[in-house]
């Protein structure tokens, strides 16, 4: 019995591969490195988290927006192949999450080296990466729900 599979849709686009993804990771990595090496004075957790919550989603959304013409063609094809809206969104959430996790690696290493595995700071990093994933998917969500998107199928 043939059963439609969701895994190929998500796995085919889960890893960052665009130049804009690389730039987003580089920006987040630079910010993370700066944060790691600038922590000479007492660590201000709320200010640090607030900065991350602004920086990560904005960088991820910008990375997603800058390759939208190419990704729109992917979305049209995936819908035509029988893909679901949620599957296509999830692949972007995963990709944005991976971009944020890689970009924030200096901070992951710092907290893993100095704190418990389940420390509050690591949880905050995880939240930031998740918000990054959701922000990465936001432009595609808006795009694929518009009438202009399905008009693309017409000649």
């Amino acid at each position: 019995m043939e059963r439609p599979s969701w895994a190929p849709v998500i796995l085919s686009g889960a890893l960052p591969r665009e130049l804009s993804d690389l730039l987003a990771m580089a920006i987040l990595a630079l910010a993370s490195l700066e944060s790691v090496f600038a922590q000479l004075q007492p660590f201000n957790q709320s200010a640090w988290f607030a900065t991350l919550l602004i920086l990560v989603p904005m960088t991820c959304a910008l990375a997603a927006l800058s390759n939208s013409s190419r990704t729109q063609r992917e979305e049209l094809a995936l819908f035509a192949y029988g893909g679901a809206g949620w599957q296509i969104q999830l692949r972007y959430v995963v990709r944005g999450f991976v971009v944020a996790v890689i970009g924030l690696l200096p901070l992951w290493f710092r907290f893993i080296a100095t704190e418990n595995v389940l420390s509050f700071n690591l949880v905050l990093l995880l939240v930031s990466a998740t918000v990054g994933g959701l922000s990465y998917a936001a432009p595609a969500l808006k795009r694929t729900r518009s009438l202009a998107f399905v008009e693309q199928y017409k000649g």
Partner: protein
Amino acid sequence: MKPLLECRNITVAYPIADGVLRLYGEGVSFNLEEGGFLSVVGGSGWGKSTLVNIVLGLEKPTRGMVQLDGENMTEQSFVKRSARVKTAAVFQRPTALPQLTVLQNLHLALSMMGVPKRERDERIKESMTFFGLERLSHSYPDSLSAGQKRRIDLARALAAKPRFLVLDEPTGDLDSSVTNLVMPLLRGLNKDHAMTILMTTALARHASAARHQIHLRPPIFQTEQPIAR
């Protein structure tokens, strides 16, 4: 017998200027039985592609109702429909993932439709051979002509062996030699495999391949309200 596809009084209104609407398909109604083959015939800009999008749940009609396999498509997403009745669609504009080769695109499409891996290779090979795509299997879609892209779309849809096949002007961009292959193939799939087919076309000679036809009328223009002067 309950039809696989049931369309009732479909009308689509597009606002084209202040207070002016363009109306497509003033109450189009038709049934498509399981194993049927229906051509939707109409000129350019008469709403054929819009009707295809509505049948697939990609657009909602302004008025009317579409039921596919008993489900109201005006309330369903494209995805749920695709998963349930195994529909494959070939749109007027070619669709393929640009970063994947022709072969990879076909593999992805079939894996998304849940075709087991052991069957995928055989079906893809058969379909690509039929459409003369063997030599293009490792090419990227952007390097191909419009006709070649159309053949990939057809190969993808037919390799999936769907229960319901929707084709929007499938012979557009194809040269006559391939067109002459496609129409008998569709007739064969319908007759021998009981595949239900809905096809749009602007050409009467292609429409005759189907067992039934409906003819759309040109859109009409209607003022939404009196235009103030």
